[in-house]
C-alpha cells in the first residue's frame, strides 16, 4: 500500500503507540481487500468498549482526526428507569464514567446513539465515513450516497484516531452498483406503515445475503423514516450494506444507472406472498399477552416521539405492561421541552437515552419478562434469535397493545 508521509509517521510511531496500532490495523485490513492507498474519513462513529483494548488504542492520542460520535450502549441511569437490577446499573454507570473520562478530552462526542445522522454526523455523497452499526451503514451508503464499508468497532476506532480508511470495497464506485434486483408488484404501498416497510426489508435481506440491492416500485415520495425502517432489517436477515431505491436514492436515478448498465445477478419479484413471508418471520409470540412494548431501534426522532405522544394523550397503559421509548440524548431534551416526556410518563411510559434497546438485557430485569411488541423489524429479528417472544406491528398496533395489555392486530 502507498502511504502518505503523514501516514508513514503514524506507522513509525511518531504519534505514539495507539496511533501506530490504529494505522497498522488499517493497513492490514486494506491489504486483505486489495486497497492501494488510504482515503480521508470526515465522519467517524465508534463504540467504546473493551476496557484495556480501548486504553491501548488511545495511548498517546491527543485528539481524534475525524469528527467522531459514539454509539449507543447502556447508560446506568437509563437502566434504573427501565427496571434493571441495581448491581447491573452501578456497573454500567462506573464503566460509562471511565469511558467518558477517556474519550471527552480526546474530542470524541459521547452522543451514545445508533443514529449518527440524527445528531449532526451526516456524510455527504461520495465522502468516506467509518461507522459501526449496520443500520447506520446502510442508511448512509444508500440514502446519502456517502461511502462506507461494514466497518467493525476496531476499524472505526482506528479511523477516528488516524482520520483515514483503506480505499477498497464500497469506497469505489464500481463496487457500489446493484447486484440483486427486486421488483415490487401488486402491492398497494400508499398506506404502508413502517412495519410494512420493515417486513419487505426483512424479506429482501434474507434473499440478498451479502449482495448490493436495488429496488424498484417504492413510491418516489417515500419519507426518510420509512426508508430507515425499510433498510435497517436488511443487514440483520442478510448482510446488505447498500440498497438503491430507483427514483429515490442518489445513485439510482434509473434502474440502469443503479446497476451500472450491467445485468443483475438475480431478479426477484416482491408481491403479496413475499410481503406475508416477511411479516411471518417477525413474529414469535405464542399468545396475545404483552409484557413490554418498545420503540427506538433505530433511535426515534422528535417527530416519531410526537406521534406516540398523540396516541397516548389522555390514555393509560395497562398496569402490567412496560412501555419503553429509546432515543438520543439531544432528542430526549427536545422531547422534554415539547412536553412529550411528561405526557408519556403520565400514561405510564418511560423515555430513555444512551441505550441500545434492541440489545436490551432481559436477564437483568428486576421483574422478569420475555414477551415484547415492537415496530422495528431489525429489533424483532435480533430478539427472536435471543428467544424473546415477539409481536410485530405498526406504532398504532404497539400503542394499542400497551393500552389494552393484549396484542390485537
Amino acid at each position, binding site marked *: 500500500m502507498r502511504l502518505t508521509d503523514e501516514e508513514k509517521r503514524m506507522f513509525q510511531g511518531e504519534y505514539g503507540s495507539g496511533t501506530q496500532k490504529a494505522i497498522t*490495523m488499517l493497513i*492490514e*485490513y486494506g*491489504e*486483505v*481487500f486489495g486497497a492501494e492507498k488510504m482515503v480521508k474519513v470526515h465522519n467517524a462513529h465508534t*463504540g467504546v*468498549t*473493551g476496557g484495556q*483494548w480501548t486504553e491501548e488504542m488511545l495511548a498517546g492520542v491527543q485528539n481524534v482526526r475525524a469528527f467522531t460520535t459514539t454509539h449507543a450502549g447502556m447508560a446506568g441511569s437509563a437502566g434504573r428507569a427501565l427496571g434493571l437490577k441495581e448491581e447491573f446499573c452501578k456497573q454500567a454507570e462506573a464503566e460509562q464514567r471511565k469511558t467518558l473520562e477517556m474519550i471527552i478530552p480526546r474530542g470524541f462526542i459521547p452522543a451514545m446513539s445508533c443514529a449518527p445522522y440524527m445528531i449532526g454526523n451526516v456524510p455527504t455523497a461520495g465522502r468516506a465515513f467509518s461507522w*459501526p*452499526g*449496520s443500520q447506520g*451503514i446502510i442508511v448512509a451508503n444508500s440514502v446519502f450516497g456517502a461511502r462506507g*464499508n*461494514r*466497518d*467493525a*468497532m*476496531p*476499524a472505526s476506532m482506528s479511523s477516528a484516531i488516524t482520520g483515514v480508511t483503506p480505499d477498497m*470495497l464500497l469506497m469505489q464506485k464500481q463496487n457500489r452498483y446493484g447486484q440483486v434486483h427486486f421488483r415490487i408488484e401488486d402491492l398497494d404501498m400508499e398506506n404502508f406503515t413502517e412495519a410494512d416497510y420493515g417486513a419487505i426489508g426483512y424479506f429482501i435481506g434474507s434473499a440478498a445475503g*451479502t449482495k448490493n440491492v436495488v429496488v424498484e416500485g417504492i413510491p418516489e415520495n417515500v419519507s426518510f423514516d420509512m426508508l430507515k425502517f425499510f433498510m435497517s432489517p436488511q443487514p*440483520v436477515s442478510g*448482510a446488505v450494506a447498500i440498497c438503491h431505491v430507483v427514483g429515490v436514492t442518489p445513485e439510482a436515478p434509473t434502474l440502469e444507472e443503479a446497476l451500472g448498465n450491467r445485468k443483475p445477478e438475480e431478479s426477484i419479484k416482491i408481491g403479496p406472498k413475499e410481503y406475508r413471508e416477511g411479516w411471518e418471520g417477525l413474529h414469535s409470540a405464542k399468545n396475545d399477552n404483552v409484557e413490554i412494548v418498545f420503540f427506538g431501534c433505530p433511535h426515534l426522532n422528535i417527530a416519531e416521539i410526537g406521534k406516540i405522544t398523540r396516541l397516548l394523550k389522555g390514555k393509560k397503559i395497562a398496569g402490567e405492561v412496560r412501555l419503553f421509548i429509546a432515543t438520543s440524548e439531544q432528542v430526549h431534551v427536545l422531547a422534554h421541552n415539547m412536553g412529550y416526556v411528561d405526557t408519556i410518563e403520565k400514561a405510564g411510559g418511560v423515555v430513555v437515552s444512551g441505550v441500545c434497546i434492541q440489545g436490551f438485557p432481559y436477564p437483568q430485569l428486576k421483574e422478569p419478562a420475555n414477551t415484547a411488541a415492537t415496530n422495528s423489524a431489525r429489533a424483532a429479528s435480533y430478539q427472536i*434469535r435471543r428467544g424473546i417472544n415477539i409481536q410485530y406491528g405498526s406504532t398504532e398496533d404497539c400503542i394499542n397493545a400497551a393500552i389494552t395489555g393484549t396484542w390485537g392486530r
Partner: protein
Amino acid sequence: MILKGKTVKKGIVEGEAIVSKLPFSFLGDLDPQTGKVVPEGHDLQGQSIAGKIFVFDTGKGSTVGPNVAYQAKQLGNTPAGMICVEVEPVMAMVAIMNDIPMVHKLDKNPLDTIVTGDYIKMNATEGVVEVIKNS
C-alpha cells in the same frame, strides 16, 4: 496435502481442524464464556472452536463481532487459527484485532478438502496450509 491461499492475518500456528459449512458471526454464534457454538440447528452446535483451526464459509452479521471475539480471547476461547472460503470486512477485523492467524481464497475449497479432526499446520504469513488427514 498442501493448499495455497492469501493472508488475512499473519502468523504460524498448528492444531486440529473443526469445520462448519455455514457463514459465522462471533456475535450470536459463539458463547465467549465457553468457546462453544450456540444456535440450535448450527452444524457445530454445542462444540467448542477454542484452540482449534476453525474452517468455515465466510463472516456474517453484526459489526460487534470482533469485540465479542476479544472477550472470548481474554478467556482463551478463540480459535488458534482460521481458514475461510472468502473473508468479509467484519471477520477480517476479528482476525486482525485479536491476532488470530488467518488465510482465505485457497486454491482448493477448504470446505471440500478439510474435515473435522484433520491436523492443520498453517503459515498464514506465506498463505500455506498443510492438511494432515486423520484417517
